[in-house]
């Protein structure tokens, strides 16, 4: 068992051990344990990354029992990328929570967050369908509890989040049962082979995909089912909202990608000409187009609603709802990936599945970029709310003068979210747009353009007033200083330090823009095409 295989299970079980031990400790020691665990996870994650970058897929049969009976953990390119996202964002946000305990809301933050982290890693490395369900539940429960730490006005949103999470998971469970009935095994890889070989099982597979997609889309808050996300993410404590928006909803996205690309025999159902398959491929395309349509709707409507918010955190939460839409635009592309437009053109001779790989790595780059940028933006917004007592954009006018580093990091994160150059958002939009042009899906280009401009609009609307310097007369200064002092008992030095994590995430948003080539290469490892 190589170190990579050891770290595959270690990345789930060791944070769980730390979470359990943290329950016994005092609040100050919990923060130290939290930081140590974060560093440990980064170490384990690099071990997995090195192995995957070297081209190998890391596999581990737990307990030594082989696949259909035992559980097999698998880490290919996609899981390595999502593991790195959770490691990086998790470490920075844990540092923020350690520096500013008030932002964590309650000492119970640490065991719950470490449990949530191990659940996330469990979902990213799981190779077994039921095990994914249990991982999703672990993430769901701890996320609900973390939201509820936000005090009195966050209990109702937490409860509504709980109902949505459980309903989504149970729909997913019924889907798992269906696939088990159709394929006879719970392991994803074996189920995929089994489904590809038995055409009669395609009906059950497509119906299972519908159920599971609806369940996961509920947890992802795609447009029509997004209302639970706004109060939950906005009401959560300062250090929790970034984790929710950047990481927790990514678990459901990861599972959707796994199902649509790795488990479902897409090419089998679409090409087969026999009568039954014909009906199935129309059902599949209908599902893909509905999800793509909801995605486009989410991008447009989400941004418009974000424009109308007058408080900072709901604005950022609506931005999450809008960005979720981007990750579903590639589904219609999945089903007719021929590069129709490029026959006649002398230009880029695309590999036959380049459209599919381009669209997928574009969506993954968008999701990763959103993870880093949104975490930074929510950290900054949470900190402003913590220091100034409110996140009303009106009453935050001129806050930028006292926290220049914070405003700079918010600006950098905004670059990532809008998708301007040198950021993963730009790379993602570039890939998606090129694949859309190749496959002549012009509507994706329109959605991307509209989304970019609208997101620039609402982010500017949120950040610009902070730069305001209308001449505040001196006695106002004391009022602000006083308001600062009592707002948080933290020493000013600690407040200064608390701005650094948000800045680090802002910098990362821009620096990761250069990794596009690496991400595309990594996505190739263990890719379904």
């Amino acid at each position, binding site marked *: *068992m*190589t170190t990579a*295989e*050891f770290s595959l*299970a270690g990345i*789930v*079980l*060791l944070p*769980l*051990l730390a*979470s*359990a*031990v943290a*329950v*016994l400790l005092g609040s100050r020691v919990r923060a130290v344990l939290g930081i140590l665990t974060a560093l440990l996870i980064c170490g384990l994650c690099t071990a997995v990354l090195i192995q995957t970058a070297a081209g190998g897929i890391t596999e*581990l*049969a*737990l*307990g*030594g*029992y082989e696949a*259909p*009976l*035992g*559980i097999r953990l698998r880490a290919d390119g996609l899981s390595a990328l999502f593991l790195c996202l959770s490691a990086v964002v998790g470490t920075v946000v844990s540092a923020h929570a350690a520096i500013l305990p008030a932002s964590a809301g*309650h*000492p*119970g933050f640490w*065991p*719950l967050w470490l*449990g949530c982290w191990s*659940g996330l890693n*469990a979902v990213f490395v799981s190779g077994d369908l*039921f*095990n994914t369900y*249990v*991982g999703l*539940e*672990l993430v769901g*429960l*701890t996320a*609900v*509890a973390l939201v*509820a*730490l936000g005090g009195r006005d966050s*209990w109702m949103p937490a409860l509504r989040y709980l109902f949505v999470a459980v309903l989504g998971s149970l729909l997913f469970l*019924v889907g798992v049962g*269906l696939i*088990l*009935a*159709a*394929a*006879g*095994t719970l392991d994803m890889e074996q189920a995929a082979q*089994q489904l590809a070989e*038995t055409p009669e*099982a395609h*009906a*059950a597979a497509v*119906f299972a995909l519908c159920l599971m997609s609806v369940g996961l889309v509920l947890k992802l808050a795609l447009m029509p089912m997004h209302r639970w996300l706004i109060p939950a993410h906005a009401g959560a404590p300062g250090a929790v909202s970034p984790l929710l928006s950047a990481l927790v909803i990514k678990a459901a996205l990861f599972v959707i990608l796994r199902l649509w690309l790795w488990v479902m025999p897409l090419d089998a159902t679409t090409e087969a000409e026999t009568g039954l398959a014909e009906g199935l491929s129309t059902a599949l395309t209908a599902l893909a187009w509905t999800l793509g349509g909801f995605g486009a709707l989410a991008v447009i409507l989400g941004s418009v609603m974000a424009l109308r918010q007058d408080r900072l955190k709901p604005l950022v939460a609506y931005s999450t709802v809008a960005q979720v839409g981007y990750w579903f635009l590639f589904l219609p592309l999945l089903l007719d990936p021929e590069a129709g437009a490029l026959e006649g053109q002398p230009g880029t001779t695309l590999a036959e599945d380049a459209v599919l790989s381009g669209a997928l790595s574009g969506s993954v780059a968008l999701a990763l970029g959103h993870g880093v940028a949104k975490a930074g933006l929510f950290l900054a917004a949470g900190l402003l709310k913590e220091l100034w007592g409110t996140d009303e954009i009106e009453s935050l006018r001129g806050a930028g003068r006292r926290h220049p580093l914070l405003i700079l990091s918010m600006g950098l994160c905004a670059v990532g979210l809008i998708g301007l150059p040198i950021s993963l958002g730009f790379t993602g939009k570039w890939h998606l747009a090129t694949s859309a042009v190749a496959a002549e899906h012009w509507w994706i280009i329109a959605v991307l353009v509209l989304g970019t401009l609208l997101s620039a609009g609402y982010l500017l609307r949120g950040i610009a007033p902070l730069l305001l310097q209308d001449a505040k007369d001196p006695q106002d200064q004391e009022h602000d200083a006083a308001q600062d002092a009592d707002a948080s008992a933290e020493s000013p030095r600690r407040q200064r330090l608390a701005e650094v994590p948000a800045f680090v995430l802002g910098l990362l948003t821009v620096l990761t823009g250069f990794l596009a080539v690496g991400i595309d290469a990594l996505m190739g490892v263990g890719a379904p095409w």
Partner: protein
Amino acid sequence: MSGLLPEDVSLAVPDIALGLALLTAAGCALIPRSRLALAAGFLSLGALTALVWLRLDSVDVGLAEAGLGGGILGALLVWLAIRSPHSPAPDSAETISTTQPTSGTRRTSRPILNPRTLLGCAAGAVLGGGLCLVWFQVLHALPAWSEPLEEQMETTGVTHEITGVLLAFRAYDTLLESAVLMLAGVAVMALGRDGGLHQLSLPQPEVPSALRWLVRLCAPVLLLAGLWLLFAGSSDSGGAFQSGAVLCSLLILLRTAHALPSRERTEPWIRPLLIGGVVVFILAGLVGPLLADPLLSEAWLSWQPQWATAAVLSVEILLTIGIAVGLFLMYLTLENPEGVQ
């Protein structure tokens, strides 16, 4: 596909009767407005589901349903329902202005057939129909793990298949699941007033001596049943979760009969017991890879044959205690709602 109605209809009568009873219990758990009726409906649904599991010859699941689903959940929901029997849902409270006296008029007579409900039921019917259609034509492939299950059974150190699956083959799932329950306990402590143990310091209302005498009689029986379920699990149906439920009901009974030790003596034990199961489970799993002769030669969560039974048993015991404490914590936070003294 054999048709729905087997040749000899009389054989199917118990199934059909049980099925219809289940449907009525489910209806009774969903439709009524008053919370008490909901709780009662849910209790009956729990009992009937336990019967269905038994009907499907799965004793373990039946026991788990009876213990956890019907038993503990029933206790939790009853306390919630007692607090305000007439569903003072916050939103329905807003519909009536809070100033006017909240007497019997609280029960809003909302017409059952408003458009929202109709739309919901229609969508539900379509989804249900679709699901049933698929069940008919889905080719039921036989699970591929029957043979490997028999061969590798003896490496697990237990003979009962379900416990073997739970604690060896899919030990990882059970670990994550017990972590879910532990973290639920942690969350309840974080959310409850003063660490969730507020109730412990409250003197409880008087309990009639008859109840106290009855509890003194049942407690040892329950304890024995719990322990038997735990140890029988390795060879017959039973296991950590079922015995955890029974032990929790034991704690609840002792609590109602004021037989539990004072807060000062119980509080230091609550947290270690809650997390004991998960910690030992992970450490035992870690032993394989770390202590194997060529380092990292064994996979995670693999029990060496020679001490497999000991490991599984110790893990199971601590898991049971953890589950019992976790469920009891939830009960404590819900006990004695302010409304009822």
